[in-house]
């Protein structure tokens, strides 16, 4: 089985390096095909491992020693247990389809080869992240996905740099840097958490750490939990580190589908699920995670209500769904979090790919006000997106219903009625904004000029979306087998509510979801309903993202820039540079003066030699005299 593990892990990096060979050449289709083929190999290997792993049989390899310094010893070790197998299959399925989709989407792009190299490198990093058997390997993958995300968001780095004042037209380069910096802040927290684990337990391997975590004091475990969660907050874009995700939409759409919806942003949830033995000991931190998750679920959904940008709406929806996952993870229902992660990966990636089709057809137009009536020209895309949106809204029998409903049920069963109400409202908002998007893009009257000539995507591009759409439909039916599979590793959890309560809950939840859909469909078929929010007076607040980006800009970025300017002009130039320059000047001047000694006359050299001898003798005598 080790063979399959290595294929699953290393096939993407081989593809990446192969595509990199063509990095400076014009577009070559072979890079797209080779990377997709290797991803297919990785996918097959992941499936084999998924079938193989069960009960006590897990695959665990130590590839080689990595760092051995004194008592510090880390192996390059990889583990495939039930949790990593699920993650591997989810990641490779979405990545493979996104690779093939990208061949069509990036067809006319100059950076075609470079793009595929980065995309495969991302998959490799993600596989390292989910397969590592220790926290340090996870951290390497964590940084790797961050780097690839930066490279891919800034794929169109040549676009001009516009300040975010003219939101949403920011440049990809700016967005990439923002994402990187935000993640760096969070990674510091995570790194400190890892240090704390090593400091106290002397090892970073999951099995050793989890076996001994109980020996630590509650205070230490709480700190570890908080610091690791700070890392998860950055990667999964939770409040207050959430602003980067919406701006990351400046990258190519398949990148948004793969990285900023299905895989990388869920790494934070994976970290919490993976460290469940730590969080099981600190329910207070778990409760905080759940509260923050519920807050983000409703907070992000509210921003999606009035946004005009196709991709940003879906990005806020991703944020909101990540909040749901954190609620489940925080309340101890780890398998439900993982289940929602998987279901979300399928329907959200296909939603993004559909948005990609629309943008491609509309010459990269992203404002949904300038679309409308596209269902006639893009029936397949419309169908797939409606299915994905229905799944997202949580309508029976699609995947989102099973996973999201379980989270609501968990909140109810844990008697966190406040969380439940928030999630319940969130479910309604989700349904509303999903179908607002569908209505404004595909139905209603045509709002684009005649110079645009929208067309349906290529058949093979649509063909890559269909498997994801099918998974978005049927994934929910695997709920039971999924639960028995992953609870081999994760704690068993089942929300205990009576059948009657369960049915009532389902009806109430479905009710608000269907209500949201109905509201959106009815109101938008009559025209634009956004005026309602304008009348409420919250439109500007919501469309400006609660002024949080502005707040960060004014209260953090600008003072920081001023501080940096001060440090540069005053500290660096006047103190550090001046000191260094002074030393150099003294040495230079003394050298310049001393040069006169070297006049080429042997006689005067001898005199200097004698002079030096006398000086040294005097020094010796003086020293002895002391």
């Amino acid at each position: 089985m080790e063979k399959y593990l290595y294929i699953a892990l290393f096939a993407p990096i081989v593809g990446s390096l192969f595509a990199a060979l063509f990095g400076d050449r014009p577009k070559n289709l072979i890079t797209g095909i080779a990377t997709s083929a290797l991803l297919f190999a990785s996918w097959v290997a992941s499936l084999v491992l998924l079938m193989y792993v069960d009960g006590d049989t897990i695959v665990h390899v130590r590839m080689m020693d990595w760092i051995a310094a004194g008592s510090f010893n880390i192996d390059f070790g990889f583990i495939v247990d039930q949790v990593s197998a699920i993650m591997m299959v989810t990641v490779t399925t979405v990545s493979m389809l996104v690779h093939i989709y990208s061949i069509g989407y990036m067809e006319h792009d100059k950076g075609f080869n470079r793009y595929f190299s980065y995309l495969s490198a991302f998959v490799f990093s993600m596989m390292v992240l989910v397969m590592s058997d220790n926290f340090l390997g996870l951290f390497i993958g964590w940084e790797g996905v961050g780097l690839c995300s930066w490279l891919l968001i800034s794929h169109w780095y040549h676009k001009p740099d516009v300040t975010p004042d003219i939101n949403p037209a920011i440049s990809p380069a700016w967005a990439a840097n923002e994402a990187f910096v935000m993640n760096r802040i969070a990674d510091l927290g995570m790194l400190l958490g890892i240090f704390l684990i090593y400091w106290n337990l002397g090892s970073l391997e999951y099995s050793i750490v989890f076996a001994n975590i109980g020996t630590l004091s509650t205070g230490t475990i709480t700190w570890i939990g908080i610091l690791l969660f700070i890392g998860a907050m950055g990667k999964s874009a939770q409040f207050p580190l959430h602003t980067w995700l919406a701006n990351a939409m400046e990258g190519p759409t398949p990148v948004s589908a793969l990285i900023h919806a299905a895989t990388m942003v869920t790494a934070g949830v994976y970290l919490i699920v993976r460290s469940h033995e730590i969080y099981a000991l600190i329910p207070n931190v778990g409760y905080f995670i759940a509260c923050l998750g519920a807050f983000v679920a409703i907070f992000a959904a509210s921003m999606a209500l009035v946004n005009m940008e196709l991709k940003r709406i879906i990005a806020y929806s991703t944020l909101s769904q990540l909040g749901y996952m954190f609620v489940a993870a925080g309340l101890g229902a780890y398998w439900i979090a993982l289940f929602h992660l998987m279901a979300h990966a399928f329907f959200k990636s296909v939603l993004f790919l559909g948005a990609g089709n629309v943008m491609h057809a509309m010459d990269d137009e992203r404002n949904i006000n300038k679309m409308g009536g596209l269902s006639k020209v893009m029936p397949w895309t419309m169908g797939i997106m409606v299915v994905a949106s229905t799944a997202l809204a949580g309508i029976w029998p699609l995947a989102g219903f099973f996973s999201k409903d379980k989270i609501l049920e968990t909140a109810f069963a844990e008697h966190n009625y406040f969380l439940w109400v928030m999630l319940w409202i969130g479910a309604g908002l989700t349904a509303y904004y999903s179908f607002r998007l569908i209505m404004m893009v595909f139905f209603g009257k045509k709002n684009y000029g005649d110079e645009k000539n929208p067309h349906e995507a290529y058949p093979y591009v649509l063909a890559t979306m269909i498997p994801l759409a099918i998974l978005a439909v049927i994934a929910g039916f695997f709920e039971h087998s999924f639960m028995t599979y992953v609870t081999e590793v994760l704690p068993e959890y089942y929300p205990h509510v009576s059948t009657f309560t369960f049915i009532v809950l389902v009806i109430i939840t479905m009710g608000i979801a269907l209500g949201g859909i109905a509201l959106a469909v009815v109101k938008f078929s009559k025209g634009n309903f956004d005026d309602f929010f304008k009348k409420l007076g919250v439109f500007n607040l919501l469309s400006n993202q609660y002024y949080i980006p502005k707040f960060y800009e004014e209260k953090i970025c600008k003072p920081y820039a001023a501080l940096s300017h001060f440090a540069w002009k005053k500290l660096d130039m006047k103190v550090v540079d001046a000191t260094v320059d002074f030393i150099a000047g003294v040495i230079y001047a003394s050298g310049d003066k001393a040069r006169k000694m070297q006049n080429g006359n042997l006689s005067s050299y001898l005199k200097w030699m004698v002079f030096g001898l006398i000086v040294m003798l005097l020094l010796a005598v003086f020293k002895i005299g002391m």
Partner: protein
Amino acid sequence: MITLTHYLVLSAILFTIGMVGVIRRKNLLLLFFSTEILLNSVNIGFVAVANYYNDLTGQMFAFFIIAVAASEVAVGLGLLILWYRKNGTIDLDSMQKLKG
């Protein structure tokens, strides 16, 4: 009675004479002479101290220095003759070819 001090004073006087010669003289041949005086002043010091301590090491060093000085003079005079044939002078001030 001639004590160690007398020898060391003699050694110091000879060393000073040699040193002044090295500094003052412009003739390369005389520079060699001065160097010999320097070396032999040190030899006197060595031998005297060796005798004082009844330790043969100092005398061995004196012989060693004599041998080195002889070879040095042999090589040095050879170079000096070559220089004289080439330039017709052995004045130190004429040797400034390496001056930048």
